């Protein structure tokens, strides 16, 4: 066993003998071992933490799920969205409403995903004709509309006074305990991640990346960018809607203010910090944001009130981090991790220039 762990730290030279090896999600024994261990530890986490921290861990998982949704759209398909809080809101309110009507989570969760998906479709139809900053503004507008709607649709959402969220219910069993919710979220997150990984290794995922990197040549190769964008929007909205449903359970009480622009920006921040265009990045980003939030709220209690009581300390810290990441490590935490890993793998012969960016060649912009 020890030998095995030791070996997985060494430089690994993969000798591929079969194309199947490139299709597998885990590329070698080391992958299987470490990711298996990670999932096991995650499932065992409630045994090691007390109530408050289980809640915090649940929040990280919910962030990861929402980030996964946004990553599909922004990281892999290249469509910026400043309005993903809207899908969280749709998911959260749908879930809460169906639970309030006495339905079980088996109905409420799929409905949350479905309604959010329909929302995604509604945005996608005009959005496929836009790109860049215009798309960002359109999605932002959508989020504001949804937030406003939630404020005025008093009969369903309770308006600005808010609404209570029932606990999730599975097969007549009510999930009261925080560790139960944690395991529930984790299971769904694992499934969602596997499905996203499937998309990424299939023609659809490649077409998404093609649309992101060069819409013009993706068209010339027979990809329909419209279709791919609509697909990305719906998948993204569905996953984010699910995350919203769980966010409702974490929050216990929903008000429209939760789903403001700050939440959208925080999601975007998360995937940029973690590393755009990677699934790893989602999780790194979620953990970082989650830990930071918890850290800030704890330090507020500890610090003297002249510092800890300052308003806007959270956005300030996030802003500083975002700027430094963009300036010093645009590939995010995952990009940095890749560099550290290859430094260790190639230890005595690693060269600083290995990851120097090559020059980008001119593209035919005018064809757009």
């Amino acid at each position: 066993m020890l030998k095995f762990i030791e070996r997985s730290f060494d430089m690994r030279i993969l000798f591929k003998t079969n194309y199947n090896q490139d299709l597998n999600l885990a590329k070698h024994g080391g992958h299987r071992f470490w990711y298996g261990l990670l999932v096991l530890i995650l499932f065992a986490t409630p045994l090691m933490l007390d109530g408050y921290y289980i809640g915090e861990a649940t929040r990280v998982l919910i962030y990861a799920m929402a980030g996964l949704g946004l990553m599909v759209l922004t990281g892999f398909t290249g469509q910026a969205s400043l309005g993903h809080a809207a899908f969280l809101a749709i998911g959260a309110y749908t879930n809460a409403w169906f639970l309030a009507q006495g339905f079980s989570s088996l109905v409420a969760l799929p409905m949350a995903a479905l309604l959010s998906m329909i929302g995604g479709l509604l945005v996608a139809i005009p959005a496929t004709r836009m790109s860049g900053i215009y798309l960002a503004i359109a999605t932002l507008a959508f989020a504001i509309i949804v937030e406003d709607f939630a404020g005025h649709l008093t009969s369903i959402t309770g308006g600005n006074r808010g609404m209570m969220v029932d606990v999730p219910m599975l097969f007549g069993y009510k999930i009261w305990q925080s560790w139960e919710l944690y395991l529930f979220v984790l299971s769904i997150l694992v499934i969602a991640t596997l499905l996203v990984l499937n998309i990424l290794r299939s023609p659809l995922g490649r077409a998404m990346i093609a649309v992101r990197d060069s819409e013009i040549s993706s068209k010339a190769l027979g990809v329909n960018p419209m279709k791919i964008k609509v697909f990305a929007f719906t998948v993204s909205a569905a996953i984010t809607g699910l995350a919203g449903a769980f966010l409702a359970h974490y929050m216990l009480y929903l008000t429209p203010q939760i789903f403001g622009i700050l939440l959208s920006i925080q999601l975007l921040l998360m995937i940029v910090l973690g590393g755009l265009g990677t699934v790893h990045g989602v999780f790194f980003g979620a953990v970082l944001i989650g830990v930071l939030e918890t850290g800030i709220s704890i330090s507020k209690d500890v610090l003297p009130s002249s510092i800890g009581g300052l308003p806007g300390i959270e956005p300030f810290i996030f802003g500083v981090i975002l700027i430094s990441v963009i300036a010093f490590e645009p590939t995010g935490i995952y990009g940095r991790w890749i560099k550290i890993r290859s430094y260790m793998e190639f230890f005595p012969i690693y060269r600083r220039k290995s990851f120097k960016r090559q020059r980008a060649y001119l593209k035919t912009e005018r064809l757009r």
Partner: protein
Amino acid sequence: MSLLEIENLSISFGGVKAVDEVSFAVEEGSVYALIGPNGAGKSTIFNLLSRFYEPLSGNLNFAGNDLLGLEAKDIARLGIARTFQNLELFEHASVLQNLLVGRHVHNTQSWWRQVLFTGRVVEAELEHRAKVEEVIDFLELAHYRNQVISGLPYGVRKKVELARALCVEPKLLLLDEPSSGLNPEETEEMGYWIEDIRRDLNMTVILIEHDMSLVKEVSDRVLAIVNGKVVTEGSHSFVQSHPDVVSAYLGDVQ
């Protein structure tokens, strides 16, 4: 009937007639070269063929299909693949992924099968991979297979773009300046590949090229365009010695 027939094709940008009543036909199995000075409208003809631009007038007929009734995304399915003058690769993907996108028109799996990555998808993926590996062998790209495009030198990128077009398994291959940015050895290599593509893969090739030695080496027929108008068409030696072509390139003799 010829594989590709272009009749009276015209387009203008603002007041500039970029392509003016251009007609030509390309025979199946031939290599056809478009030459002309910068701004003559050669790439515009490619972009019209790809349906990126809407022509003012004219007919485009490919193997019995009217291209004007189709959209840009449908062109590859008919069997037309192309490269771009300034490279349009998927920068943040590996060479292998780039080439696999070239197989997109041959994908028949429904989206939900792909999301679940069912056995059928695996089977299809293996077939695509085998096809892509043939192209990798053909263009000697094995060394770069898993490298990301943004880290590759220009000459290799050029080759990858050609490989990606070959993965479509087109009937007609449009090459926009295949030798630009390549050194003399690489250009010579490109010439051999174009010959091989025509002979071994049975593809018809239209290329836009400024390197006259490459044009001479590979092309059956040459079309010279100046200011959007056809100057002359014929064999390489005929076109090269045509007085209007000479004056377009070198200026008029006083």
